[in-house]
């Protein structure tokens, strides 16, 4: 089939998953053991306050009706109202979107910048010192909890050397980038470790492939081979690994935004948990899930573009 039909098929194939995701998010409010209102307000809340909250959340309606209302609300492009901020959730998420998005993009950029040359270098000297060095250091970096690495970086580079601001988002593009540098670097490093560990075997795979052998017999220099073919073929796995790990990346934003006090969506999710703002938790979870679904779809398509054998 053609790429177009594959694209459509995959798109509609997402529908049941999408539905289950919606249902799961909807359930979040209703799986709360006992009375959700009591859980939000605390066990000693007065009956009046409890009833007030139940009305506001629509908990007194039968469950199928609530789900219908939930879907209808979604259809209107609304995710409901946040209990804590008393503002529409879509607005809240949108206002913080640029922070988290910038963090994610910059981390991915750092990752690609660091991991590609590193992997190439390691594979070139396969089995020798650089190879081991890269492998060992990626293992080390991978094993360090990101929040701890973030804290240490904050303490050393932002404090001791005063190179970076210690919190917040800053004003203006240049300032924003300055604030983002350290957090994205930390995340990017972690991603690099992930990718390097995954990439290595892929690169070996590629290098063992016949057509590179063939290229060699035609007399192309080493350098040309590595750069043209190896890199091009390594790019795909890198993107794939990055794409597959978007989930991890989005989850990490919660932790990194907290450590660096960035006003992003991840930090807001944590706040929402502390104050038990369940509508907000639901909204953010849904947005993240949608982002990942979309991302998986795009990665699949990219994969299809580059290697059409997948869907034939």
């Amino acid at each position, binding site marked *: 089939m053609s790429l177009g039909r594959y694209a459509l098929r995959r798109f509609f194939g997402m529908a049941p998953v999408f539905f289950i995701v919606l249902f799961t998010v909807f359930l979040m409010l209703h799986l709360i053991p006992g009375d959700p209102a009591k859980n939000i*307000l*605390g*066990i*000693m*809340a*007065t009956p009046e*306050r409890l009833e007030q909250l139940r009305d506001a959340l629509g908990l007194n309606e039968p469950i199928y009706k609530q789900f219908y209302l939930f879907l209808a609300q979604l259809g209107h492009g609304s995710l409901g109202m946040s209990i*804590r901020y008393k503002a529409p959730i879509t607005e809240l998420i949108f206002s913080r979107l640029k922070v988290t998005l910038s963090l994610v993009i910059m981390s991915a950029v750092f990752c690609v910048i660091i991991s590609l040359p590193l992997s190439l270098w390691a594979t070139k000297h396969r089995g020798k010192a650089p190879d081991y060095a890269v492998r060992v250091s990626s293992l080390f970096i991978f094993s360090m909890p990101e929040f701890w690495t973030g804290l240490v970086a*904050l*303490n050393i580079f*932002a*404090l001791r050397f*005063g190179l970076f*601001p*210690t*919190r*917040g988002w800053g*004003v203006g593009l240049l300032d924003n980038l300055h604030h983002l540098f350290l957090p994205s670097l930390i995340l990017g490093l972690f991603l690099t470790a992930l990718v390097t560990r995954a990439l290595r075997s892929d690169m070996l795979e590629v290098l063992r492939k016949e057509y590179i052998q063939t290229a060699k017999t035609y007399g192309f220099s080493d350098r040309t081979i590595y750069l043209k073919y190896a890199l091009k073929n390594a790019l795909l796995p890198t993107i794939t690994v990055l794409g597959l790990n978007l989930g991890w990346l989005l989850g990490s934003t919660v932790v990194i935004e907290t450590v660096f*006090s960035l*006003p992003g969506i991840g930090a807001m999710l944590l*706040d929402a948990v*502390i*104050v*038990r703002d369940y509508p907000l938790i639901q909204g953010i979870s849904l947005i993240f899930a949608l982002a990942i679904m979309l991302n998986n779809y795009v990665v699949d398509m990219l994969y299809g573009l580059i290697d059409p054998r997948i869907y034939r």
Partner: protein
Amino acid sequence: MRRLVVVLLMSLALLITVVGLGAAESVLRVAWMSEPKTLDPVGPSDNPTLWALHNVHDCLVRVSDDSTYIEPDLAELWEISDDLLTYTFHLRKGIEFHNGKEVTAKDVVFSLDRTRDPEQCPYSDMFKPIEEIVAVDKYTVAIRLSAPYAPILADLAMFNAAIIPEEYFLAVGGTQEFGRHPIGAGPFKFEYWKPGEEIMFSKFEGYWREGQPKVDKLVYYIMPDATSRSLAVRAGSVDVAVYIPYGEIGTLSADPNVKVSVDTIWRHDFVKINCGIEPFTDAKVRQALNYAVNKQGIINSVLFGYGEIAPSYMPPVLYFNDELDPYPYDPEKAKQLLKEAGYEKGFKTSILATAGEPVMVSIATILQQNLRDIGIDATIEKVEEGTRWDRLIAREYELSPDYYTSDILDDDLLTDFGISYAGNQAYFSDYHNPRVEELYALGRVTLDEGARRDIYHEIQRLAHEDAAQIFLTTTPNPTAMRTNVYGFLVPANDFYRWEYVWIEE
């Protein structure tokens, strides 16, 4: 001719340099702990807001720099009638608000009428004894009381008794707009407010105190994380960091670019006990709690040695009863008391703390361990500050570490707020001792200092015996600043006097 040109050029150069130097603005950057809710003096009740109001607003009177007496502010002198019922204030003439309008008696009447309006001001209770406020003439105001009221002068020095311009307030349509764009008679003018990030004030050139403020601009950066604040002052991105963690005082002092000022303030740290529910209705149980907590241990660890153990509900404000001995750390005695109260097997309870408040959480953790040692099983519940406040008011708590500060140079405020039932139900703890109520009412109308001292000493003694709270400590206020910051002063009510501060380049 050439010489003339040279002279002119040199004068021009000199002029430019002088103007340039003069034009180099000094900006005082302060790392502030939390975003103020408004800059309208009437309405707010949370400390970070109160402590920011003083930049923009002045009152009739104020607390002296050394926090021991009340001194003139916008009012240059006052008289008290013989029957103690009328206070007549004489305003300084020619004082301007930030918009150039003169401060007159009409503004005073308007402002103070708002302050004593229960609909607008959470502290209106304190001004209940005021029967009426009258503008006698353009610069004279008479305040008539219904009965002698000792705290009145101290109350008028409070943040919410600030004098605001009536005309402007009404013109902008009330507190919503006024709170975001305030005009006052204080040393700094409000410039702009970036929600969640910063508030900028600038020097009010027409401020009536000569030579103040010394800096051209004052900016508050909102930085809720205490560690970030101290990191910022070390890095030099701010000049002053308020309320730095006690643990950093050592490191900051050791830094050659930073100095730390540890100032006494009217602050009392304690653990609230919900006296209205079992088993805390029994005084013996509450006393047991006081014996069970290792208060010196808390000072040594959480406060890094700063602070004094508190014997009762009052920190040293006016009539501190220093004859009271604080409860010693005696877990055996605690267990004994529990047994007498019938709780030999202990019981379960919960401690409500604010997430993200390291000192509070640390106190809760130590408390949990101390309670475990005497057989009480406590879980720690961490919630957001707003939620905790709601739950305190709704009595949905059992124990909760907390603190309060006195905003006035008088014991009445904390007695009203913290221990009297008539005030706030003893700060939402439902502690109710009729004798305390009697004395509290008496203390307000007694003007004789000796008699008042005895009254407040007695209230403190009663609260101590009844163990109305788990009394913890009187804690000082640590501020860190760059070494080139001079003139820093914060009186014991935490109303920072930034107008005294200057920066040497």
